């Protein structure tokens, strides 16, 4: 028992270093966690946050340094050791089992069993899963298949799983990235409750909102080193940004005013059975049209229908006044429509390929004569975009999996730009992207609009929507509920339209 060591930290990491071939992922990082505190861990992508977490959970082992658990030295040789010591983690991309039920996802690894025969007790587990989900305010059926759930719902299950472990240390890696504001509020509430019960929480986020709402202390990592730890009440947003990026970023949302030009895209009564219905809007040159609404309200589905990924079964699409039937992405791109997908790793990039291969992927036929590749032409274009977008990599021949999230996103944007497409649909363009890259992407979008491009931006982040859009469409359950101009929109109005209170 640790009765004598009352003042020690629950968890203390000292001088942790971790090397990967050729890279120092962490260098003499120190980190500590008090009982019953919410400790935010921030830093740009690639700063080493994920590595640090993997070390705490035992997925990775440090090359140097020591870990103290309740004041005693401990070695987390594999994930089970951490689990036994009641350390649980909720990862950035929900690490779920898509083919299995919610109950199984919650209890995999620590099932409720009949003590003597070790038979799984399904009824007990289902009941417990139901109870846990209820405490989270979710009415998910524990028998549902995980793969059928939305990302936000999966996140809920992940949290329920952490609760079921009754963890003393809970690590949340960007838990709010996929959540809507209302869900985020719920998550804050749950986190505070946990704190009250004495659980220590490590909270990773890119959103300053999260940090200032719930965190007690904040540790900043930069380039694998810890910059420092502060009480949240003692550090301003500006100072925090400065600590993270090592420089000051003046403005996050630089959408410049440009004259709105001709109509380039008009959608009339678009519908797809089971997903959305009666969608109508129009888009003009130089305009950024924001699409707001809860996750699952059908925003992405509309975008993908316009891009030809999934067919629509009713309505019309007009490009520059001419009706065009769009049945494939190929056709959409022929019409000058481009789509930046929400999930850049799954939908946007072919990770094992190089930057140039990815940038030229959708326009391959242009760098070829009668099918034979002329690589030079492609390289030239890539090189140009590489410099233009300020992608951080040694060359255009780097593999995209080795890039940070923000730079990966820039490559996807580059692919879009290479296509010389004039109508761009961007689905969550800054999701999971660090502050620096986020501002860069916003700058690019603004420049594009200034050059007469027409943009649709789907985003779950209110400040982003409000800051960037010329006009805003709000969707709820597959239908457009309201359309706002830039001037009349505010956070409250958007939210009201998204949830439509009093339906």
């Amino acid at each position: 028992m640790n009765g004598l060591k009352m003042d020690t930290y629950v968890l203390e990491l000292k001088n942790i270093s971790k090397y990967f071939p050729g890279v120092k992922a962490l260098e003499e990082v120190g980190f500590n966690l008090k009982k019953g505190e919410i400790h935010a861990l921030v830093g740009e992508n690639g700063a080493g946050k994920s590595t640090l977490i993997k070390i705490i959970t035992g997925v990775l082992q440090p090359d140097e340094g020591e870990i103290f658990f309740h004041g005693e030295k401990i070695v987390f040789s594999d994930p089970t050791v951490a689990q036994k010591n009641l350390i649980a983690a909720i990862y950035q991309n929900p690490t779920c089992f898509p083919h299995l039920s919610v109950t199984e996802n919650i209890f995999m690894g620590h099932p409720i069993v009949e003590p003597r025969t070790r038979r799984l007790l399904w009824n007990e587990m289902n009941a417990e899963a139901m109870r846990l989900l209820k405490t989270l305010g979710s009415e998910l059926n524990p028998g549902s298949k995980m793969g059928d759930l939305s990302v936000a719902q999966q996140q809920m299950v992940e949290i329920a799983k952490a609760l079921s472990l009754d963890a003393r240390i809970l690590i949340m890696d960007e838990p709010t990235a996929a959540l809507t504001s209302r869900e985020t509020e719920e998550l804050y509430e749950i986190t505070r409750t946990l704190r009250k019960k004495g659980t220590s929480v490590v909270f990773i986020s890119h959103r300053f909102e999260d940090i200032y709402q719930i965190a007690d202390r904040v540790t900043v990592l930069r380039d694998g080193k810890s910059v420092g730890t502060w009480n949240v009440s003692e550090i301003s947003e500006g100072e925090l940004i400065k600590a993270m990026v090592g420089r000051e970023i003046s403005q996050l949302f630089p959408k410049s005013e440009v004259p709105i030009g001709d109509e380039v895209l008009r959608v009339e009564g678009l519908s797809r059975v089971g997903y959305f219905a009666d969608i109508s809007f129009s888009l003009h040159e130089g305009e950024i049209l924001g699409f707001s609404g809860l996750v699952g309200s059908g925003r992405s589905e509309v975008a993908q229908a316009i891009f030809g990924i999934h067919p629509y079964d009713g309505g019309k699409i007009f490009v520059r006044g001419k009706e065009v039937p769009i049945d494939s992405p190929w056709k959409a791109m022929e019409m000058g429509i481009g789509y930046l997908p929400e999930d850049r790793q799954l939908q946007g990039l072919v990770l094992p390929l190089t930057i140039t291969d990815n940038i030229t992927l959708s326009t391959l036929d242009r760098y070829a004569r009668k099918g034979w590749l002329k690589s030079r032409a492609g390289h030239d274009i890539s090189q140009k975009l590489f410099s233009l977008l300020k992608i951080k990599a040694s060359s255009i021949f780097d593999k995209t999996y080795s890039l940070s999230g923000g730079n990966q996103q820039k490559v996807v944007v580059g692919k879009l730009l290479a296509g010389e497409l004039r109508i761009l649909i961007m689905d969550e363009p800054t999701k999971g992207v660090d502050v620096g890259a986020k501002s860069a992407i916003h700058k690019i979008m603004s420049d594009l609009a200034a050059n007469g491009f027409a943009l649709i931006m789907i985003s779950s982040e209110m400040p982003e929507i409000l800051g960037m859009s010329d006009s805003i469409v709000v969707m709820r359950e597959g239908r457009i509920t309201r359309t706002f101009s830039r001037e009349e929109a505010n956070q409250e109005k958007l939210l009201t339209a998204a949830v439509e209170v009093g339906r």
Partner: protein
Amino acid sequence: MESTKTSIIPGGLSLREVFLRWEWLLVGLIVGVSIVNGRLSPHFWDYAGLMDAMAVFLEKGFIVLPVAMILISGEIDISVSSIVALSSVLMALSFQAGLPMVLAICVAVAVGTACGAFNGFLITRIPGLSSVIVTLAANSLFRGIAYIVLGDRAVGGFPRWYSYLSWGYLGSSSIPFIILAFGIVAVFFGLVLHKTTFGRKVYAIGNNQVAARFSGIPVSRIKLILFTLAGVMSGLAAVFLTSKLGSSRPNVALGYELEVIAIAVLGGVSPAGGKGGIPGAILALILMRLLRYGLGLINVPGQVMLVVIGIILVLVVMLPNLIGSVRISRKRFG
């Protein structure tokens, strides 16, 4: 994403370099096997014999090429052997019915094309139908049709020149004609896969089909072409195989489907898609052939040969993993 940041490889080996490494391994093995063979049997270094040995069942090689491409695109085709049988049988029948041999050969290729297109059509048009299931069933279906049309008969009596395809030599040299034919086709496939936009798209699909689709690549159409291509080449293989056998029966080319996949994978093609290339597949074909030839020359019984080939297949594929893990652990602790 941050976690992938951790996997930066120093000096970033490009895919091409990795290919090269694998191919060098195969070249090394080929040299090794040749040396051992040469020591074991005095007949091994007989140039003409070696050429003839390379030509034995080279028609399998014709199928390896498109199958490698299908594997690279992340799909699989286990119906090729049956397509060979059906093409062969229908070619023989149409010849027997009075068609000139040249047209009968066209029939074989046409039948192969149709079978391949049938596979491709089902796989691309019915979402949820995987290539494993389709080609597994088509494997029975095509061979079954061959049995239906030919029953227990064999058809032969082809014109004399037709046997030249598999048995003839180039002029007075000792290079079999089929080696030249295969060489031409192999170069063509190598160029298509490695030097054209089509090939680039195949790799993109194999590495990430969703992203390929989101990038405007017509995934279905390319897969349809790939399966049709496998059919075309199976038809062509049927032409050469029938020439070799001098007659056709519904039970020719039994068991080719797995051998062909084994050779492609030995050549560095990953059944998971996105990896490998034509040069590797060709080297693997040569390696496999030399191995069987060498073992045959010293009269290793067929059953022992099975064991040896099985072990070598596993060992060769395991080798890079073992070397890799040794290197990593040395780096970590050394």
